[in-house]
């Protein structure tokens, strides 16, 4: 989607300006700096329902921080400070977010970053004191098979008093790798930003790169099918994971089995278990034959029933319900304040879904419900996921019915200027922005839904017991690699 229009704003009044937007119910989707000479351009993308606004501000090394007026900007401003060396003055928690090292220059500056004499910035302590208060550092290498991250709990007895999450161990410099001629197809790199959300990232990249090219109808439906297959397997993983983490082995085994069946079907139908390599700018790579569509129909129905079956097991077990209900509550007010997105937001009563608000590909022609709950606890997040699996099955079946034969790929021309790709990944609203100048990607920015949802996890665990943390973490189901980039 080409998005060249922007509202310029003086950096000195940027905070007040964004504050008025925030008061009007707008949410900051993303905020990043794109270097220019001299100084840099701050890009702020705001969304309210189906309206999107881009505000640009020319800054020179410093500007008054937005965070005091718009709390959800905190993590984004920390990243700008760390990666571009632009100081948000008056920010109350200026701690590195993903890079954690100090050398010469900053990683996203055009002049480059030089590692000579580099030192690692120590992770701050939690500063909670009192009788019987102790700190539990966890990670980056965890007990389970998960990605690296560092968590610091302050606890008194069992309940958690404070949690600070420090990520960045999976930082690979992905945004910098995107910079270069637009002609090269980087969809393989985009898919590997977060391997379990390969379709969503591949699709966001394709949307950013294909401008306003008309995509063939069949390709649009196939893209929807791919996205929903990915959503089902991610949701099944979280539902099964919740059962594993609460030692409910029977349901966990059923969930894991259903997911494996789906991954195997993915391999059979699209040649890759994670559906990698399916989406390219201009369409999709593989078409489905009539036999394959029949197989697909069967597979998604089974996956849908399996989700309902696991859900039934969970609801019929009083000890499981006791474990999940009222655990890890994220209040609606906090979810709004922190600008959370996706399943996390929908479980806390915020009805927002890119597929419904800003329909892309074939979503505009399909009918589906946005599933939401109000309580914001682990059970609500599980319920939202189960509901979304059912909706996804319905969406895929609609696609199969509506899809006509035809082309699946077309030539695209990448536009100059600013373009975006916004999709609803299984984790929530995902945004890719490309600043293209003279046939080169000058700056590529990725805002995974995890970036804005991680800070909400710090709030949701407060007052819960430490052994419930894995459960709450799993119910959020966030990406480390997508956050660290």
């Amino acid at each position, binding site marked *: 989607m080409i998005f060249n229009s922007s509202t310029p704003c003086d950096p000195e009044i940027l905070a007040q300006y964004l504050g008025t937007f925030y008061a009007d119910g707008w949410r900051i989707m993303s905020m990043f700096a794109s270097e220019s000479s001299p100084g840099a351009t701050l890009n702020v993308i705001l969304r309210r329902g189906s309206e999107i606004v881009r505000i640009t501000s020319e800054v020179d090394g410093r500007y008054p921080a937005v965070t005091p007026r718009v709390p959800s900007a905190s993590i984004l401003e920390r990243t700008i400070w760390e990666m571009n060396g632009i100081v948000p003055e008056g920010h109350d928690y200026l701690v590195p977010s993903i*890079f*954690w*090292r100090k050398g010469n220059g900053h*990683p996203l500056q055009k002049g480059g970053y030089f590692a000579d004499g580099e030192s*690692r910035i120590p992770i701050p302590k939690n500063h909670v004191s009192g009788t019987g208060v102790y700190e539990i550092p966890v990670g*980056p*290498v965890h*007990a*389970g*098979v*998960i*990605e*690296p991250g560092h968590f610091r709990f302050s606890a008194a007895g069992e309940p958690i008093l404070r949690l600070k999450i420090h990520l*960045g*161990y*999976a*930082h*690979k*410099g*992905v945004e*910098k*790798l995107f910079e270069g001629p637009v002609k090269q197809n*980087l969809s*393989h*790199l985009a898919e*590997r*930003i*977060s*391997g*379990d959300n*390969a379709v969503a990232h591949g699709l966001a990249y394709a949307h950013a790169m294909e401008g306003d090219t008309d995509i063939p109808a069949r390709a649009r439906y196939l893209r929807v099918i791919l996205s929903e297959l990915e959503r089902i397997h991610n949701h099944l*993983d979280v539902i099964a994971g919740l059962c594993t983490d609460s030692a409910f082995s029977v349901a966990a*085994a*059923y969930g*894991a*089995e*259903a*997911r*494996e*069946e789906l*991954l195997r079907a993915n*391999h059979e139908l699209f040649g890759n*278990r*994670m559906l*990698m*390599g399916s989406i390219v700018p201009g369409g999709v790579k593989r078409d489905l034959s009539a036999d394959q569509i029949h197989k697909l129909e069967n597979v998604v*129905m*089974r996956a849908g*029933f*399996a989700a*309902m*079956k696991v859900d039934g097991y969970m609801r019929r077990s009083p000890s499981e319900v006791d474990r999940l209900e009222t655990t890890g509550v994220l209040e609606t007010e906090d979810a709004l304040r922190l600008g959370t997105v996706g399943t996390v937001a929908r479980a806390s009563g915020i009805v927002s879904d890119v597929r419904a608000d800003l329909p892309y590909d074939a979503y505009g022609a399909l009918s589906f419900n946005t599933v939401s709950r109000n309580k914001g606890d682990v059970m609500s997040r599980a319920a939202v996921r189960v509901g979304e699996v059912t909706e996804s099955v319905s969406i895929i079946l609609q696609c199969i019915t509506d899809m006509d034969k035809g082309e699946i790929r077309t030539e695209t021309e990448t536009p100059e200027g600013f373009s975006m790709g916004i999709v609803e990944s299984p984790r929530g609203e995902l945004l890719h922005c490309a600043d293209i100048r003279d046939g080169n990607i000058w700056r590529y920015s990725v805002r995974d839904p995890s970036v804005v949802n991680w800070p909400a996890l710090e709030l949701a665990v407060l007052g819960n017991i430490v052994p419930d943390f894995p459960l709450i973490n799993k119910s959020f189901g966030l*990406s*480390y*690699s997508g956050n*660290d980039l």
Partner: protein
Amino acid sequence: MIRRSVSNLVSQKKPAVSREEMHGDRLMMPFVSVGCRKCRKCTEVCPTDAIEISEEWTVDIGKCIFCMECVESCPSSAVKEVPAPLYADRRDGLIFGVSRPPGESEGGIEKSKAEILSDSIAIRELDTGSCNACEVEVNCMSNPFYDMSRFGMKIVASPRHADVLLVTGPMTRNMKAAALETFEAVPSPKVVVAMGTCAISGGIFVEGDVFGEGIKDTLDPDIYIPGCPPSPGRVLIALLKAFGRD
């Protein structure tokens, strides 16, 4: 009635896949035996520079992400898909050309180590910044289909309980110190396994903020398992074979 039909749809039998089925789980890699006209189209489209053409056409499946762009782009259809080997015990054992075509994996973990570790293998997974796809597959190794515990393998919570360090990811600079400490914490004799393209060569992230080319510049892998990501069945069979148990 409805409940019965639903429960029939969700399988009732034990789904575990046999060793034979896991052996049949093939990974296709690009390969040229005849017909290459050295037009270099494949080297241009390869996102990880896995293909080299000098005297002969060679492919390094330690770098390959198995996207098959080369197969699609070859104007003379010389690049074909052939089954890839399960693993290699040396880094250069993953480079293939006409003079060294891909075949069965040979060698494995040093005999002395494999004998001490015996039939019970405790695995600690170490993510050095992977994209999470490898973690998904490692998690799948213990689902009802693959059920790794039937082979005497299990995932342990601490490196101090581990025999095998199963390493994924391109070794980001931020993760290097923690990875070395984890390696130190594993009691000897220890086996290091590089799983997936990133761990073997840095893969698609090799130009990024990572240390060296894959984990071999930090840790010393005993075996390399190619794939992006390798499927759970292949990892299990590769481990069994490398330990001389298949």
